[in-house]
């Protein structure tokens, strides 16, 4: 069942198109990575799905409902964490967490989530007694994360939720993602931390300039992408190229019988993404041959 369904989403800010026909499907139980370079339209998409922005064109549904019209009832089923959490300066962290819980279901929600809240406070190592203005960036992020994770919502919309978290806390967050996945709940995670995506996400969507350039499981993505191969020829020269996985054997055979050594490296996730973030949308499938002795060529731009 599709929890999120967006078809041809368009959003104009004045004359700039933030989204230009974006399609996105997130099915139940998926931890869906949402990737793309700065300004690609990730936050805009999430804010439309939250009913904070009104799409200029296209349709989107959450649990089959219109996020703009049915915002309130949908929000009771989901939780959202932005990448830059701002808090009320004179409320304490504990008060803010309770408030955000109460906003979704009154005081009964605070009571219901009490033990989870306490556990998360320990896990994330947050002091709930400090005033909002005295929290560091990472600690503000934790406040929003705890308030979002404690109610165990059906859907988590996370927009760079770990910005500013230290590596230890990053691990706690990873564990929470795994827990969510194991319980069959759904996550849409926008992130620039590729290792985070690689560990927890089952499916990824890559957007660029308001459009989706790639969407699928990580395994598929790998499979579609070129493998880096290099061979030492009979005369000692080293040649290398990027070729589709299916064509590796053919490429090696074409180097002739005198090949002394061959290495084939599947692309790292980073290469995979960087290739798709760049100016040209095509994945590096062409067998671009290079005869330079140093071989390897970066694809960074």
């Amino acid at each position: 069942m599709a929890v999120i369904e967006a078809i041809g989403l368009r959003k104009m800010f004045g004359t700039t198109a933030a989204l230009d026909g974006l399609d996105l499907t997130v099915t139940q139980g998926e931890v869906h990575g949402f990737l793309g370079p700065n300004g690609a339209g990730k936050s805009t998409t999430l804010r439309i799905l939250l009913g904070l922005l009104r799409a200029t064109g296209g349709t989107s549904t959450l649990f089959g409902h219109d996020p703009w019209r049915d915002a309130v009832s949908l929000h009771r089923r989901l939780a959202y964490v932005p990448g830059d959490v701002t808090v009320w300066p004179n409320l304490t962290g504990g008060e803010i967490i309770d408030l955000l819980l109460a906003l979704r279901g009154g005081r009964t929600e605070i009571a219901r989530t009490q033990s989870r809240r306490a556990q998360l406070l320990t896990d994330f190592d947050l002091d709930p007694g400090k005033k909002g203005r005295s929290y560091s960036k990472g600690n503000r992020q934790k406040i929003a994360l705890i308030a979002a994770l404690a109610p165990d919502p059906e859907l988590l919309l996370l927009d760079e939720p770990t910005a500013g978290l230290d590596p230890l806390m990053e691990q706690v967050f990873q564990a929470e993602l795994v827990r969510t996945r194991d319980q069959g709940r759904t996550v849409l995670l926008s992130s620039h931390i590729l290792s985070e995506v690689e560990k927890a996400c089952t499916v990824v969507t890559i957007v660029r300039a308001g459009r989706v350039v790639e969407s699928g499981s990580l395994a598929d993505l790998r499979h579609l992408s070129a493998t880096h191969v290099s061979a030492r020829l009979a005369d000692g020269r080293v040649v290398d190229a990027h070729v589709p996985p299916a064509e590796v054997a053919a490429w090696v055979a074409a180097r002739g019988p005198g090949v002394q050594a061959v290495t084939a490296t599947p692309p790292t996730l980073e290469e995979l993404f960087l290739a798709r973030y760049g100016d040209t949308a095509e994945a590096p499938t062409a067998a671009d041959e290079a005869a330079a002795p140093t071989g390897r060529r970066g694809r960074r731009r």
Partner: protein
Amino acid sequence: MTSLTGTGALLRLAARRDRILIPVSALALTALSVGSAQATVALYPDAATAMKELGPVLASPSALALYGPATTTSLEGLSIFKTLLMGAVFVGLLAYAVVRRHTRIEEEEGRLELLGAGAIGRQAPLTAAVLLAVIATILTAALSVGGLIGIGFDPLGSLAFGATWEIAGLAMTGVTAVAAQLTASARGTAGWAIGALAVLYLLRALGDTATTDAGRALRWFSPFGWASQVFPYGSNRIWLLLPAVALCLGLVAAAFALLERRDLGAGLLPARRGRTHAPRGLAGPVGLAWRLLRPGVLGWLIGFVLLGAVYGGLVAQVDTMLSDASVQQLLADMAGVPVASLLASLTGVYAATVLRFMAVAAAAAGIGMVLRLATEERATRTEAVLTTGTGRWRWYAAFVAPAAVVTGALMVIMATVMGARGHAALAAAPPVGQVLQGALEAVPAAWVLVGLAGLLAGWSPRVAPYAWAGLGLAFVLGEFGTTMRLPQWLIDVSPFAHVTVYPLGTWEWGNVVGLSLVAAALTVAGGILHRRRDLG
């Protein structure tokens, strides 16, 4: 690098960011002073005629309390009577706005941190803000001086008029510089600075209306008291600028000393630890909004109670004023009442005048509360509320409804205190019930401006602050429109032009219902706009 490095660059940046605010304020205040001066001069053939008509008004305690003492009996002096101190308050507010904008607000929004990491001295931002405020107020005063000389007024007197305004500008520059160091929030700064302005103005009012020498000495404790003693077109005591300069320098020096003692982004008072769980009341949008609005409301409440007590006490002065039989006759003729009921009608006029002014202040309280909605949105905190099951209408109502209630409640409380105190001091003064009725009659006008704030905040958080311009315009049109001889249709734009408080005890239902409907329509329109637009 000295602690002042970068002041020039910051000053240019600040001036650029205020390139609309400062010129528009200066021009508007010049239009106010020169326009009403010209209109008054055109109205009366000579000073004697003017004095005959205006004299009794000028000597009344309400005029003394609100506008200060008349400077001279010359026509020029009479023509600037209303705009002199009121204008000075506006100049003070301009200085306050400029200083606060470029110190605490910058700091709160984190921009100062970005700048502070560059080659910017620690004292540079405050210095730049103070310099810009002084430049802005001098510009405003100078424009008015030029305008007054331009319409043929005495140059020295006009200069004294400018000095009066500059006294207020300098004082509020210093006051705001200190206030910006005391608390960690721009809102706290506003509370301290505006509170100080109110107290200083009140000290002057008490001094000017006092009947004993000791009481009159109070005015020397307030820069507004100094301003009221310059007497443009009379004794022209321009030298009173000197204590204002000294005060400004002293306060700015104090602000620098405080700045040295605190961290960037912090106040002087350290943040305390608080609860680890939300209290029972903080469990929904209404509870949250109230928690955010509560400190401000408390401040307004204290102010209104104090003002009610002070203005109520002043009622008794009407009696002392009227000991002379010929003055009694003159005033009775003017008011068109027999001498016997003179006291009652004079105190009635007085109460009605005060209520009209308090309605403006109550509107300011309400506008401030509604604009919190926009502040929350600009700080992107609204997002957290609206993505956790709170509808936009509820969130909008959580600010607008308390604003409307508080606006009305402040008027009721102030009227009750003033009425009770006045009636106790002077039996002929209107009883509480009548004063209360007058207050209620003025409330819908304040609601219209609260509704306007709702409309603007609903429309966009960026345009929301223009609600203050709306209040200023409504006040000027309603209060000075006739003096400036503006066309009636323009004056009628101001809701305050439709407040018919006097005579007390009679309802003018048409105005009450009409204004209430306009207020409701504006509020609902704001809610609809808020519901329909992009947020954040």
